[in-house]
Protein backbone atom coordinates (compact mmCIF):
# COMPACT_ATOMS: atom_id res chain seq x y z
CA UNK A 1 0.00 0.00 0.00
CA UNK A 2 1.28 3.36 -0.97
CA UNK A 3 0.92 5.48 2.09
CA UNK A 4 1.78 8.81 0.37
CA UNK A 5 -1.68 8.72 -1.13
CA UNK A 6 -3.95 11.76 -0.84
CA UNK A 7 -6.94 9.51 -1.41
CA UNK A 8 -6.13 7.56 1.75
CA UNK A 9 -5.91 10.77 3.69
CA UNK A 10 -9.27 11.88 2.34
CA UNK A 11 -10.74 8.45 3.16
CA UNK A 12 -9.44 8.73 6.69
CA UNK A 13 -11.00 12.16 7.05
CA UNK A 14 -14.33 10.77 5.76
CA UNK A 15 -14.11 7.81 8.15
CA UNK A 16 -14.06 5.25 5.43
CA UNK A 17 -10.99 3.35 6.61
CA UNK A 18 -11.23 0.47 9.04
CA UNK A 19 -9.03 -1.90 10.80
CA UNK A 20 -5.46 -2.42 9.69
CA UNK A 21 -5.53 0.16 6.93
CA UNK A 22 -6.72 2.85 9.30
CA UNK A 23 -3.97 1.98 11.79
CA UNK A 24 -1.31 2.05 9.06
CA UNK A 25 -2.48 5.36 7.65
CA UNK A 26 -2.62 6.97 11.10
CA UNK A 27 0.86 5.74 11.92
CA UNK A 28 2.10 7.21 8.67
CA UNK A 29 0.48 10.54 9.34
CA UNK A 30 2.17 10.65 12.72
CA UNK A 31 5.57 10.17 11.11
CA UNK A 32 5.10 11.99 7.73
CA UNK A 33 5.02 15.78 7.94
CA UNK A 34 3.57 16.26 4.46
CA UNK A 35 0.74 13.82 4.85
CA UNK A 36 0.10 15.03 8.33
CA UNK A 37 -0.25 18.61 7.12
CA UNK A 38 -2.56 17.42 4.37
CA UNK A 39 -4.66 15.55 6.89
CA UNK A 40 -4.96 18.55 9.18
CA UNK A 41 -5.85 20.79 6.23
CA UNK A 42 -8.63 18.51 4.99
CA UNK A 43 -9.96 18.06 8.46
CA UNK A 44 -10.06 21.83 8.93
CA UNK A 45 -11.97 22.26 5.68
CA UNK A 46 -14.43 19.65 6.71
CA UNK A 47 -15.05 21.26 10.00
CA UNK A 48 -15.60 24.61 8.30
CA UNK A 49 -18.15 23.07 5.95
CA UNK A 50 -19.97 21.39 8.80
CA UNK A 51 -20.09 24.67 10.70
CA UNK A 52 -21.38 26.67 7.69
CA UNK A 53 -24.02 24.65 5.74
CA UNK A 54 -25.22 25.93 2.32
CA UNK A 55 -28.67 27.43 2.48
CA UNK A 56 -30.74 27.23 -0.81
CA UNK A 57 -32.05 30.57 -1.88
CA UNK A 58 -35.60 30.55 -3.30
CA UNK A 59 -37.24 33.31 -5.21
CA UNK A 60 -40.25 33.07 -2.95
CA UNK A 61 -40.65 32.18 0.62
CA UNK A 62 -41.54 28.64 1.56
CA UNK A 63 -44.90 29.72 2.87
CA UNK A 64 -45.70 31.51 -0.37
CA UNK A 65 -44.72 28.47 -2.48
CA UNK A 66 -46.82 25.98 -0.56
CA UNK A 67 -49.71 28.36 -0.26
CA UNK A 68 -49.65 28.70 -4.01
CA UNK A 69 -49.74 24.89 -4.41
CA UNK A 70 -52.61 24.66 -1.99
CA UNK A 71 -54.48 27.36 -3.84
CA UNK A 72 -54.11 25.49 -7.16
CA UNK A 73 -55.36 22.29 -5.62
CA UNK A 74 -58.39 23.95 -4.14
CA UNK A 75 -59.17 25.63 -7.47
CA UNK A 76 -59.29 22.29 -9.27
CA UNK A 77 -61.26 20.55 -6.56
CA UNK A 78 -64.50 19.04 -7.97
CA UNK A 79 -63.41 19.50 -11.55
CA UNK A 80 -63.44 16.17 -13.37
CA UNK A 81 -60.06 15.26 -14.50
CA UNK A 82 -59.72 12.83 -17.29
CA UNK A 83 -56.78 10.56 -17.16
CA UNK A 84 -55.69 9.68 -20.63
CA UNK A 85 -55.26 5.97 -20.95
CA UNK A 86 -52.41 5.13 -23.26
CA UNK A 87 -53.33 2.78 -26.13
CA UNK A 88 -52.46 -0.80 -25.47
CA UNK A 89 -50.33 -2.78 -27.81
CA UNK A 90 -51.75 -5.95 -29.35
CA UNK A 91 -49.90 -8.20 -27.01
CA UNK A 92 -51.01 -6.17 -23.99
CA UNK A 93 -54.60 -6.19 -25.19
CA UNK A 94 -54.54 -9.92 -25.72
CA UNK A 95 -53.00 -10.46 -22.29
CA UNK A 96 -55.63 -8.26 -20.69
CA UNK A 97 -58.58 -10.04 -22.37
CA UNK A 98 -57.17 -13.56 -22.38
CA UNK A 99 -59.99 -14.97 -20.31
CA UNK A 100 -62.66 -13.59 -22.63
CA UNK A 101 -60.76 -14.76 -25.69
CA UNK A 102 -60.37 -18.25 -24.29
CA UNK A 103 -64.07 -18.41 -23.54
CA UNK A 104 -65.03 -17.20 -27.01
CA UNK A 105 -62.64 -19.68 -28.63
CA UNK A 106 -64.09 -22.52 -26.55
CA UNK A 107 -67.65 -21.62 -27.55
CA UNK A 108 -66.69 -21.37 -31.21
CA UNK A 109 -64.90 -24.72 -31.08
CA UNK A 110 -67.93 -26.33 -29.46
CA UNK A 111 -70.31 -24.92 -32.07
CA UNK A 112 -68.08 -26.02 -34.94
CA UNK A 113 -67.65 -29.47 -33.43
CA UNK A 114 -71.39 -29.93 -33.06
CA UNK A 115 -71.97 -28.76 -36.60
CA UNK A 116 -69.42 -31.16 -38.06
CA UNK A 117 -70.73 -34.01 -35.94
CA UNK A 118 -74.28 -33.34 -37.09
CA UNK A 119 -73.17 -33.36 -40.72
CA UNK A 120 -71.14 -36.52 -40.44
CA UNK A 121 -73.63 -38.52 -38.44
CA UNK A 122 -76.78 -37.31 -40.09
CA UNK A 123 -79.35 -40.11 -39.90
CA UNK A 124 -80.55 -41.33 -43.23
CA UNK A 125 -84.00 -40.29 -44.05
CA UNK A 126 -86.41 -43.10 -43.94
CA UNK A 127 -89.83 -43.12 -45.38
CA UNK A 128 -92.49 -43.11 -42.78
CA UNK A 129 -94.54 -45.67 -44.52
CA UNK A 130 -93.40 -48.13 -47.12
CA UNK A 131 -94.86 -47.42 -50.53
CA UNK A 132 -97.55 -49.97 -51.19
CA UNK A 133 -96.97 -52.29 -54.12
CA UNK A 134 -99.47 -52.05 -56.97
CA UNK A 135 -100.00 -55.81 -57.01
CA UNK A 136 -98.56 -58.93 -55.51
CA UNK A 137 -98.57 -62.50 -56.75
CA UNK A 138 -98.18 -65.45 -54.47
CA UNK A 139 -97.28 -67.96 -57.14
CA UNK A 140 -97.05 -68.08 -60.93
CA UNK A 141 -97.52 -71.28 -62.88
CA UNK A 142 -96.30 -71.76 -66.42
CA UNK A 143 -97.62 -75.05 -67.73
CA UNK A 144 -95.78 -74.71 -71.03
CA UNK A 145 -92.46 -76.53 -71.14
CA UNK A 146 -89.24 -74.57 -70.87
CA UNK A 147 -90.98 -71.41 -69.78
CA UNK A 148 -90.59 -69.46 -66.60
CA UNK A 149 -92.42 -66.55 -65.15
CA UNK A 150 -90.90 -63.91 -62.91
CA UNK A 151 -92.79 -61.29 -60.99
CA UNK A 152 -91.18 -57.92 -60.44
CA UNK A 153 -92.40 -54.49 -59.55
CA UNK A 154 -91.58 -51.15 -61.03
CA UNK A 155 -91.84 -48.70 -58.19
CA UNK A 156 -91.35 -45.68 -60.40
CA UNK A 157 -94.17 -46.70 -62.70
CA UNK A 158 -96.38 -48.37 -60.13
CA UNK A 159 -96.87 -51.49 -62.16
CA UNK A 160 -96.38 -55.16 -61.49
CA UNK A 161 -95.00 -57.20 -64.32
CA UNK A 162 -95.14 -60.94 -64.88
CA UNK A 163 -92.26 -61.60 -67.23
CA UNK A 164 -92.84 -64.86 -69.06
CA UNK A 165 -89.67 -66.20 -70.60
CA UNK A 166 -89.22 -69.11 -72.94
CA UNK A 167 -92.38 -68.76 -74.98
CA UNK A 168 -91.69 -69.90 -78.53
CA UNK A 169 -91.36 -67.25 -81.16
CA UNK A 170 -93.64 -67.46 -84.14
CA UNK A 171 -93.70 -65.55 -87.38
CA UNK A 172 -97.36 -64.69 -87.27
CA UNK A 173 -100.50 -65.20 -85.23
CA UNK A 174 -101.68 -68.20 -87.20
CA UNK A 175 -98.44 -70.00 -86.56
CA UNK A 176 -98.68 -69.04 -82.92
CA UNK A 177 -102.14 -70.54 -82.55
CA UNK A 178 -101.06 -73.68 -84.30
CA UNK A 179 -97.99 -73.98 -82.13
CA UNK A 180 -99.80 -73.41 -78.89
CA UNK A 181 -102.50 -75.84 -79.89
CA UNK A 182 -99.84 -78.42 -80.53
CA UNK A 183 -98.09 -77.75 -77.24
CA UNK A 184 -101.30 -77.76 -75.30
CA UNK A 185 -102.59 -81.00 -76.63
Amino acid at each position, binding site marked *: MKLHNPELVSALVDGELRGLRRWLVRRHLARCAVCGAEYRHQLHVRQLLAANPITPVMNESADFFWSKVRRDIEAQAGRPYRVRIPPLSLSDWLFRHQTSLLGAAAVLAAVLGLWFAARMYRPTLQTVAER*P*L*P*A*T*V*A*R*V*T*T*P*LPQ*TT*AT*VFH*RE*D*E*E*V*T*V*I*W*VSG*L*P*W*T*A*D*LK*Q*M*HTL*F*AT*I*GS
Partner: protein
Amino acid sequence: MRLLVFSLMLLLTVGAASASNVTGRLIRADNVKAPSDKQVQDIAEKLRKVFGYARYEQIGRDTKPFHAGERVKLDLGEGFTVFCHPKGINSDGKHEMDVELYSGKTLIVKPERLAIRPGKYLLVRGPEVGASLFIIALTVAP
Protein backbone atom coordinates in the same frame (compact mmCIF):
# COMPACT_ATOMS: atom_id res chain seq x y z
CA MET B 1 -145.36 -53.68 -50.33
CA ARG B 2 -143.65 -50.37 -50.52
CA LEU B 3 -141.25 -51.47 -47.86
CA LEU B 4 -140.41 -54.58 -49.87
CA VAL B 5 -139.78 -52.57 -53.03
CA PHE B 6 -137.64 -50.15 -51.13
CA SER B 7 -135.60 -52.97 -49.59
CA LEU B 8 -135.06 -54.58 -52.96
CA MET B 9 -133.90 -51.31 -54.47
CA LEU B 10 -131.58 -50.76 -51.55
CA LEU B 11 -130.10 -54.23 -51.96
CA LEU B 12 -129.58 -53.72 -55.67
CA THR B 13 -127.86 -50.39 -55.09
CA VAL B 14 -125.56 -51.78 -52.47
CA GLY B 15 -124.85 -54.78 -54.63
CA ALA B 16 -124.01 -52.63 -57.60
CA ALA B 17 -121.76 -50.43 -55.51
CA SER B 18 -119.81 -53.40 -54.18
CA ALA B 19 -119.28 -54.87 -57.65
CA SER B 20 -115.96 -54.04 -59.29
CA ASN B 21 -114.95 -54.15 -62.89
CA VAL B 22 -111.93 -55.95 -64.12
CA THR B 23 -110.51 -54.83 -67.43
CA GLY B 24 -108.20 -56.79 -69.65
CA ARG B 25 -106.38 -55.29 -72.62
CA LEU B 26 -104.36 -57.01 -75.30
CA ILE B 27 -101.63 -54.72 -76.52
CA ARG B 28 -99.16 -55.25 -79.31
CA ALA B 29 -95.79 -53.63 -79.04
CA ASP B 30 -93.37 -53.06 -81.89
CA ASN B 31 -90.79 -50.60 -83.10
CA VAL B 32 -92.68 -49.30 -86.10
CA LYS B 33 -92.05 -45.59 -86.50
CA ALA B 34 -95.58 -44.45 -85.98
CA PRO B 35 -97.48 -42.90 -83.11
CA SER B 36 -98.96 -45.19 -80.50
CA ASP B 37 -102.61 -46.01 -80.48
CA LYS B 38 -104.67 -43.35 -78.71
CA GLN B 39 -106.43 -46.04 -76.77
CA VAL B 40 -103.24 -46.84 -74.90
CA GLN B 41 -102.14 -43.28 -74.28
CA ASP B 42 -102.80 -43.67 -70.57
CA ILE B 43 -100.47 -46.61 -70.29
CA ALA B 44 -98.06 -46.12 -73.22
CA GLU B 45 -95.36 -44.43 -71.18
CA LYS B 46 -95.40 -47.17 -68.55
CA LEU B 47 -95.18 -49.81 -71.25
CA ARG B 48 -92.32 -48.01 -72.92
CA LYS B 49 -90.33 -47.88 -69.71
CA VAL B 50 -90.94 -51.55 -68.92
CA PHE B 51 -90.65 -53.19 -72.31
CA GLY B 52 -88.80 -50.60 -74.33
CA TYR B 53 -90.76 -50.76 -77.55
CA ALA B 54 -91.53 -47.59 -79.45
CA ARG B 55 -95.12 -48.14 -80.48
CA TYR B 56 -98.06 -49.71 -78.74
CA GLU B 57 -101.40 -50.66 -80.21
CA GLN B 58 -104.45 -51.97 -78.44
CA ILE B 59 -105.73 -55.07 -80.16
CA GLY B 60 -108.57 -55.97 -77.85
CA ARG B 61 -110.23 -54.90 -74.63
CA ASP B 62 -112.83 -56.39 -72.38
CA THR B 63 -114.39 -55.22 -69.14
CA LYS B 64 -116.57 -57.32 -66.89
CA PRO B 65 -117.96 -56.81 -63.42
CA PHE B 66 -117.01 -59.43 -60.99
CA HIS B 67 -118.00 -60.59 -57.56
CA ALA B 68 -116.28 -62.82 -55.13
CA GLY B 69 -116.72 -66.42 -56.11
CA GLU B 70 -117.80 -65.72 -59.67
CA ARG B 71 -115.60 -66.78 -62.55
CA VAL B 72 -115.18 -64.04 -65.11
CA LYS B 73 -114.01 -64.47 -68.69
CA LEU B 74 -112.36 -61.67 -70.59
CA ASP B 75 -112.09 -62.12 -74.33
CA LEU B 76 -109.21 -59.96 -75.49
CA GLY B 77 -109.13 -60.98 -79.13
CA GLU B 78 -106.63 -62.83 -81.29
CA GLY B 79 -107.38 -65.97 -79.33
CA PHE B 80 -106.26 -64.58 -76.00
CA THR B 81 -108.59 -65.15 -73.09
CA VAL B 82 -108.25 -64.27 -69.43
CA PHE B 83 -110.18 -66.01 -66.68
CA CYS B 84 -110.46 -64.32 -63.33
CA HIS B 85 -111.52 -66.02 -60.10
CA PRO B 86 -112.07 -63.26 -57.58
CA LYS B 87 -111.54 -64.18 -53.95
CA GLY B 88 -112.52 -60.94 -52.34
CA ILE B 89 -110.78 -57.90 -50.91
CA ASN B 90 -107.95 -58.34 -48.44
CA SER B 91 -107.04 -56.18 -45.50
CA ASP B 92 -104.83 -53.96 -47.69
CA GLY B 93 -107.75 -53.08 -49.90
CA LYS B 94 -106.47 -55.18 -52.78
CA HIS B 95 -108.67 -57.42 -54.91
CA GLU B 96 -107.52 -61.00 -54.67
CA MET B 97 -108.05 -63.36 -57.56
CA ASP B 98 -106.60 -66.22 -59.51
CA VAL B 99 -105.93 -65.45 -63.13
CA GLU B 100 -105.47 -67.75 -66.10
CA LEU B 101 -104.19 -66.55 -69.44
CA TYR B 102 -105.03 -68.69 -72.43
CA SER B 103 -104.05 -68.56 -76.02
CA GLY B 104 -106.76 -70.60 -77.61
CA LYS B 105 -107.05 -73.57 -75.35
CA THR B 106 -103.47 -73.46 -74.16
CA LEU B 107 -102.81 -72.13 -70.70
CA ILE B 108 -99.83 -69.81 -70.90
CA VAL B 109 -99.49 -68.49 -67.38
CA LYS B 110 -101.48 -68.76 -64.19
CA PRO B 111 -100.74 -66.27 -61.44
CA GLU B 112 -102.36 -67.45 -58.24
CA ARG B 113 -103.54 -65.27 -55.40
CA LEU B 114 -102.97 -62.16 -57.38
CA ALA B 115 -103.71 -59.18 -55.18
CA ILE B 116 -104.07 -56.07 -57.26
CA ARG B 117 -104.67 -52.58 -56.00
CA PRO B 118 -107.58 -50.78 -57.67
CA GLY B 119 -106.43 -48.52 -60.47
CA LYS B 120 -103.00 -50.17 -60.75
CA TYR B 121 -101.81 -52.35 -63.60
CA LEU B 122 -100.60 -55.90 -63.83
CA LEU B 123 -98.71 -56.45 -67.05
CA VAL B 124 -98.01 -59.90 -68.49
CA ARG B 125 -95.31 -60.25 -71.11
CA GLY B 126 -96.81 -62.56 -73.66
CA PRO B 127 -95.45 -64.27 -76.73
CA GLU B 128 -93.38 -62.66 -79.44
CA VAL B 129 -94.93 -62.84 -82.85
CA GLY B 130 -92.82 -61.61 -85.71
CA ALA B 131 -91.37 -58.29 -84.67
CA SER B 132 -94.10 -57.67 -82.15
CA LEU B 133 -94.65 -58.52 -78.54
CA PHE B 134 -98.04 -59.18 -77.05
CA ILE B 135 -98.75 -57.73 -73.67
CA ILE B 136 -101.77 -58.37 -71.50
CA ALA B 137 -102.71 -55.60 -69.10
CA LEU B 138 -105.08 -56.24 -66.23
CA THR B 139 -106.57 -53.63 -63.98
CA VAL B 140 -109.40 -53.40 -61.52
CA ALA B 141 -111.50 -50.28 -61.56
CA PRO B 142 -111.40 -48.38 -58.25
